[in-house]
């Protein structure tokens, strides 16, 4: 029964959700190759960090020659969304008698796409089968994404320069759309707007610390604007 839910989740992930991730991670692989990060590191980052924004920051700051601490802090700050996402999803999957480690593994499998789909699908899945469904769904997403990272990385070198450039261009496009498409409330709108302004400004001021600085300054400005109403 649980096995069935696992396969069901895997099957659902194999369609459009995977196609979108292929675009994002092929672009990421091409970017990593262009920035001369080793292939193993690029693919491993997809499994270990499993958050494209964090991976982009990891690659970007490494290229900028940022201090180790600045990179770790920036990656950590960029992943803050996982706390609210995990807080919201875990109670939906909890089932008495199940060992706790299964939820801690699920927390690592969580991503923006997996979370969005889980929130949409869970009402139609019996509680006892949700965790298995989630495992099936997210494991397929990770496998597809790791494979796409490798394909983008290796393929980038063999492609004509223009095709390669177009692949790398897919990364900011993917985020531009996913971020603007997700704006449903003022927190998101203000946070994104202030961050978009603060990003280039902070970079001009201090390239190595620009990512966390833009987050702190832009985020705090957005929070203050939010409070003014």
């Amino acid at each position: 029964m649980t096995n069935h839910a696992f396969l069901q989740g895997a099957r659902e992930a194999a369609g459009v959700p995977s196609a979108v991730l292929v675009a994002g991670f092929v672009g990421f692989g091409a970017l990593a190759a262009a920035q001369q990060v080793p292939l193993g590191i690029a693919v491993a980052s997809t499994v270990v960090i499993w958050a494209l924004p964090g991976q982009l920051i990891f690659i970007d700051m490494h290229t900028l020659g940022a201090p180790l601490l600045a990179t770790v802090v920036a990656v950590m700050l960029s992943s803050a969304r996982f706390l609210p996402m995990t807080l919201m999803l875990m109670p939906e999957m909890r089932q008495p008698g199940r060992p706790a480690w299964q939820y801690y593994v699920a927390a690592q499998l969580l991503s923006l796409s997996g979370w969005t789909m889980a929130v949409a699908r869970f009402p139609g899945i019996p509680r006892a089968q949700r965790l298995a469904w989630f495992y099936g769904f997210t494991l397929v997403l990770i496998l597809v994404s790791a494979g796409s990272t490798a394909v983008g990385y290796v393929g980038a070198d063999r492609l004509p320069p223009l095709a390669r450039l177009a692949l790398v261009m897919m990364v900011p496009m993917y985020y531009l759309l996913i971020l603007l498409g997700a704006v449903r409330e003022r927190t998101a709108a203000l946070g994104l707007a202030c961050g978009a302004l603060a990003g280039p400004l902070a970079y001009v001021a201090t390239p190595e610390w620009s990512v966390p600085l833009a987050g702190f300054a832009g985020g705090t400005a957005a929070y203050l604007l939010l409070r003014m109403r």
Partner: protein
Amino acid sequence: MDLWLLLGACGAATYLWRGPGVRISAGLDPRGELFSWISCVAYAIIAGVVSRMLVIPTGVLAETSHLERALCSVAALAAYFWLTRRNLFVGVLAGALALCLLRL
């Protein structure tokens, strides 16, 4: 070797948000002030990275002009919000194709 260490640290830093979330289920108020500020910072960080990539690109993207990147963004946004009903795949593809067309 250093890079593997850095990757491990970055993975652990990401898990610092994931793991405790399992434990804290009722501890943090999703409507509280701290939570609100954390959300703002989270949005600002990724928006900052993406806007910096488009406004002051480093690496290969630096080969493109401001106008090219602006037109790619417009093509992607138009395909995503107007032509299709928020089809992410088509939107991203439109942005990349726009660059190819501009360069032909």
